[in-house]
């Protein structure tokens, strides 16, 4: 597997404390996915224990990318952040925001590539805010149109 040097501006969770360690592309992708999942669900950076827990399982194949999102979403911490069902139906909408991230993870790890390649967050914010107001079919259509426009930009 191709090995790349760890980027200088990587966070602790990406292994900055050990600059001599080379990480494979897959390892970078896995770490980026965990960071993305934590930010989407818990709105914070992963702690080292959480990072290790999920990266180990992702790398061993014991968990899929979606399992990471699902696991975080079902955590006690997520319950504190995501309002209860009784609060005017916000919970499904918040979950839709997470879904937007999952679409990306599920479809060829597109978002993780954004992190790895340092492209940033080109259209995720718009996708999330739209997903908040929409249902599954609309989210899919939105994802498809965003995907197409991104691909168009890249190819240009």
């Amino acid at each position, binding site marked *: 597997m191709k090995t790349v040097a760890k980027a200088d501006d990587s966070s602790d969770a990406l292994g900055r404390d050990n600059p001599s360690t080379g990480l494979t592309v897959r390892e970078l992708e896995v770490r980026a996915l965990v960071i993305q999942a934590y930010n989407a669900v818990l709105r914070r950076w992963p702690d080292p224990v959480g990072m290790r827990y999920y990266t180990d399982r992702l790398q061993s194949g014991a968990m899929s990318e979606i399992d990471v999102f*699902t696991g975080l979403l079902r955590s006690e911490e997520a319950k504190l952040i995501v309002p209860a*069902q009784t609060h005017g139906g916000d919970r499904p909408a918040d979950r839709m925001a997470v*879904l937007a991230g999952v679409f990306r993870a*599920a*479809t060829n790890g597109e978002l993780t590539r954004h992190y790895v390649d340092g492209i940033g967050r080109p259209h995720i914010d718009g996708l999330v805010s739209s997903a908040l107001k929409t249902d599954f*079919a609309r989210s899919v*259509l939105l994802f*498809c149109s965003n995907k197409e426009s991104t691909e168009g930009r890249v190819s240009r």
Partner: protein
Amino acid sequence: MSSRIFWLGMHKILRTTELVQLRLMGYEVFGPDYISTVYDQSADLSSQSGQESSLPEDVFRKLISFNFFYNEITEEISEILNFYFDAVIVTINPDWLLAVLEAYEGPVLYRTYGQPYSLSEHFNARGAWETMTTRENLHVIPFAAETIEHEQEWFRQLCTEPVPYQIPDDVFEFAKGRRQNAPRRSEIVVSIPNIENPYYSAAYEKFSSRFSEGYFRILGPQRRIPADPRILGEMSRADLLDRMSRASAYFYIYNDPVCYLPPIETMQLGRPVVFGPGSLLARFSNERNPGYARTDEQASALLNRLLKRDSGLAREIVAAQEPVRVRYDRAHVRPIFERVFRRLLANPARPPACEKHGNTIKVSGSDGPGDEVVVVPLHIDGLFHYVDGRPTALEGIPRVVDALVDTVISKSSAHVVVSCTHDSKPVIFDFFRAHISAGRVTIFAFNQQRDEAEAAFEKLRFVEYVSMISQNVKAYIVPHYYLFPEALLNDVPITLYLPDYFPYLMPDEVFDTSSEKDALNKQVGSELGRRATRVLTNSQFTKEYLPQTGLVPEEQGDKIVVAPLPFLGAKRASSLADYERIRLEKAVGGRPFLFYPTANRPNKKLTFFLRLLAFKRLENPELCAVLTCSLDSVPEVRTTAEDYNLTDALVMLPGSNESTMRWLYENTAALCLTSIAEGNFPPQVLEALNYGAPVVATRLPTISEVARSEVGKLLLCNPLDMGDFAEKLAFAMANRDKIIARQNELLKSMHRWNSAEAFATAVARSLPHVQFGASQ
């Protein structure tokens, strides 16, 4: 050394029959004490601590003091069961079985005796389907083939040959020793034990409301006796047997498909038993049995004759019930019991029905998806359902999916993956059982979902799975234009099945919950239509208008493939069982009926159908109609039925299976198809032609397109023309044979045009990346 068996039971008769016989066969059998607080009138409450056992004393003590009934099995007890026992036999209760399956890993034999509900439905409701179908060495031993007829296929596959059960030995002893000339009592005995129990309480109330005569004697132990002098309550076995042997008759009052032992004991004692429809006794014999009473009045008449010492009738009934008595006779039962139990206990090995890996379910030992995979998403509840335990496809798209999967399996070597919801796992498994067993179909089963977000996660999990095998996915058949938007998230060749698009044909109607939802549905359909490699439809008519709907880009019209539907019902239609036929005849009540099997959609014009029925009933008040839909999905249909006072003239049979459909076609006065728009040659017309039902239908372009020059052989009417329909219905009903002969001429041509081969050829064109002609 003999095997050591754990026997989970408490029934006072089984402890004297089957438990004893197992010990006589040389097995060491441990039977626990019944120490549950749940009252059961059949439970033997005596202590079992005196039973012989080679178990260490402390283990024996732990087992005998543990409550195994309606209770979870603890880890410690579970370890004991696994360490000390070679097999577990569970009797009667499905929940006891589930507790054992949870705790014990070895062979489990589940002995059933008939209960008033479906065991498979009960297990499905408990979420136990997976536990049972993926379990090794699990055997169900029913006591009669008739008691599993209604069970679902997966459950019946777990069943061994039936092993009858026997009435207790004391009945035989009593029969031998009693005085032949003991005076008869002028009373009729019935059994209703434990009237506090909801089941028996309902039975008691029903019985009392219909049979108030004082000559009845109600047998069975009671906890608290209601104020009814006919209830005798608990009595000694000797008194009970004496009462039964001297009664004028025994009346079996239950109609559900189980049977308790008292009527059989009465038969062994030589007294006549009277019984009603639906009961297991009725199914053991038949309607011509002299003890059979079709109605309460007939039962009263028979019982009165027996009370008045009609010895001829009594002899006739006793002679006719002999084959039933023999079923439970120990001389008949014991050899079968010994043979089957010895075989199962010596060699309990049995592979599980299927294996589950992650979300996928396939037959044990098969390879699963290989190099060439066709994906068919079916993860919507309600597409398939059970009718009397038989898996059945809803009319419309699911039946076509059935034909598509058959075609792919028979004409290519591709493997098919079908998805399903958590709740539809059992029915999807049974529906595609033949293909799954052949290792050609794998199921991707969704997990349970508690809200919309979790439902979306599950869909994404499926997306991820298809992504994983995307290199091998040669076709993704999307069977509906908006129900599976997640298909857009995979980069695989899509074939969209699009038999019609009614919002284009009827722009003023709302088809989903709102016009906004219709618009969103169209967006999904358009995206799928644009992305699809091929669009599969069933008529040239639909192919021509689809590019104008926006669902298929105008410049891509040549990717639409027309596959005329073959006759779909034949494969799964068989003759009706007697009980099904009787039920249908009762529902229709011997009246002539019009038939229109269809969903209630705006294009079907069921309001017109109902007005037409009301009009025809003016001249023929007996005429009724059989429909297979709900009247409520188009609001004005329900009100029309009420306005025209048609409630009693409508027989609603939603979710009928193919065999029922066949009977309805064969017996209808006419198929009356009032739809004003169809995407293809209506399958109902093709079925009516095949089953010999006169057809009166709207003159639809999709009918003319297929029937071509022979279209005149059908009675076709102007759309929504009451006079035209009324006149042609009258003609069809008066000239049935002539009409059918004329239709048969058309049918010959239809066999050519709408053959399974023509369908398969077109399907192959719609799946360009799948290699056809390489069937295995």
